[in-house]
């Protein structure tokens, strides 16, 4: 049956150029090859997010009256609803962690150097869009924590000169977080952002196939290669299988619960904190004046995105110790701020 279907397609479409291209595709093999699997792993987790997200959207209702109740309905009445929601919750955390590992491994192996500068810039944009997806998805259960976290998040653009009020108003859809905000966040989370990141990821993956995978400067003498199909893809599938086992373990051990519906009239509860991936922003704003903190993070993100164009040495195939140290400094800053925010319980 399968071969008849294959013959049917072969008679009509000429796949030989694709088959020839796949057959000749090679992946560099060296002692840092391990990091190559994180890009594919990010795509795999993203696929899980898309599938579970569609399943949740079948039942979710983006209105302040029904939002929390519809999530409760998913958890209590829908078959395996608790499982799908927990996979979506842990999947988001895994996705951000995997994308961060992918980004920093790319950075320290200097894979951003010429001719892959555009891939790096697109990668940073993808990370920003995924973080925005996480932020917009956070409000959807309409709980006290998600409500006040969104209130803080949507007030941040107010520090941006000239256009800050417009951006904040555009996100909130009114004077305060409410029905309009929920509809906007849902639309952004399920339509606008997925279209944006899917388009940019498609270009990112296309470029990685056209340009091939980068070999680290220290491994350029290595000439070992492995076939993309079946060798590399079999290993990649093994990584996916292991990662899914870890994800299911997290879901079974720490399933995501549902807090009570928010009462916007009540004041913000003491000790609220954002998710781990936004703790560094939270702590930066507690440590420095808001304008300096947000300005510093924005400037740092712009420099980070432009690193391939600033690191001339790496592009010329030379060691660039300054940028390695810059990357280490960024990691130290992110970890320090995250740990500081985690161990303190002050209210922002």
């Amino acid at each position, binding site marked *: 049956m399968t071969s008849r279907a294959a013959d049917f397609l072969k008679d009509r479409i000429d796949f030989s150029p694709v088959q020839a291209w796949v057959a000749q595709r090679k992946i560099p093999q060296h002692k840092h090859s391990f990091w190559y699997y994180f890009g594919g792993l990010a795509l795999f987790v993203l696929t899980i997010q898309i599938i579970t997200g569609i399943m949740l959207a079948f039942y979710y209702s983006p209105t302040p009256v029904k939002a929390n109740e519809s999530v*409760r309905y998913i*958890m209590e009445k829908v078959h395996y609803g608790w499982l799908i929601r927990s996979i979506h919750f842990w999947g988001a955390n895994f996705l951000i962690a995997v994308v961060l590992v992918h980004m920093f491994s790319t950075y320290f192996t200097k894979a951003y150097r010429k001719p892959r500068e555009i891939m790096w810039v697109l990668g940073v944009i993808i990370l920003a869009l995924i973080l925005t997806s996480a932020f917009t998805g956070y409000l959807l259960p309409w709980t006290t924590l998600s409500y006040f976290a969104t209130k803080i998040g949507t007030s941040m653009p107010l520090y941006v000169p000239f256009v800050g009020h417009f951006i904040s108003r555009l996100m909130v859809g009114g004077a305060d977080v409410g029905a309009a905000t929920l509809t906007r966040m849902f639309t952004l989370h399920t339509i606008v952002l997925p279209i944006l990141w899917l388009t940019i990821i498609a270009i990112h993956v296309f470029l990685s196939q056209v340009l091939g995978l980068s070999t680290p400067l220290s491994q350029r003498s290595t000439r070992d290669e492995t076939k993309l199909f079946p060798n590399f893809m079999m290993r990649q*599938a093994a990584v996916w299988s292991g990662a899914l086992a870890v994800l*299911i*373990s997290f879901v079974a051990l720490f399933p995501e619960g549902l807090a009570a519906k928010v009462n916007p009239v009540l004041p913000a509860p003491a000790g609220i904190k954002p998710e781990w991936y936004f703790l560094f922003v939270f702590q930066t704003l507690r440590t420095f004046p808001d304008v300096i903190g947000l300005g510093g993070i924005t400037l740092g993100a712009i420099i980070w995105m432009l690193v391939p164009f600033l690191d001339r040495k790496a592009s010329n195939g030379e060691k660039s110790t300054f940028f390695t140290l810059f990357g280490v400094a960024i990691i130290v800053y992110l970890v320090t701020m995250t740990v500081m925010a985690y161990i303190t319980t002050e209210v922002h």
Partner: protein
Amino acid sequence: MFALVLDAAADSLASAIPSFTDRFNFALPLIVVLLIVMFFLLIKVYALENQPHDRLVKKSQTRKRTGP
């Protein structure tokens, strides 16, 4: 109709998440299957990469000689 169902669900104070045992009765077999798949793939790719090239050649030659 949907609003009524939602109200009924909201009124229910039953725990939304199954018990630890129920969760693991579901998760454990899945985790075992995924780990078996993972090791199967790793063993398969190891065997593929460590197969002596000349053995492959000999096999194909033998097949040619004994074929119809």
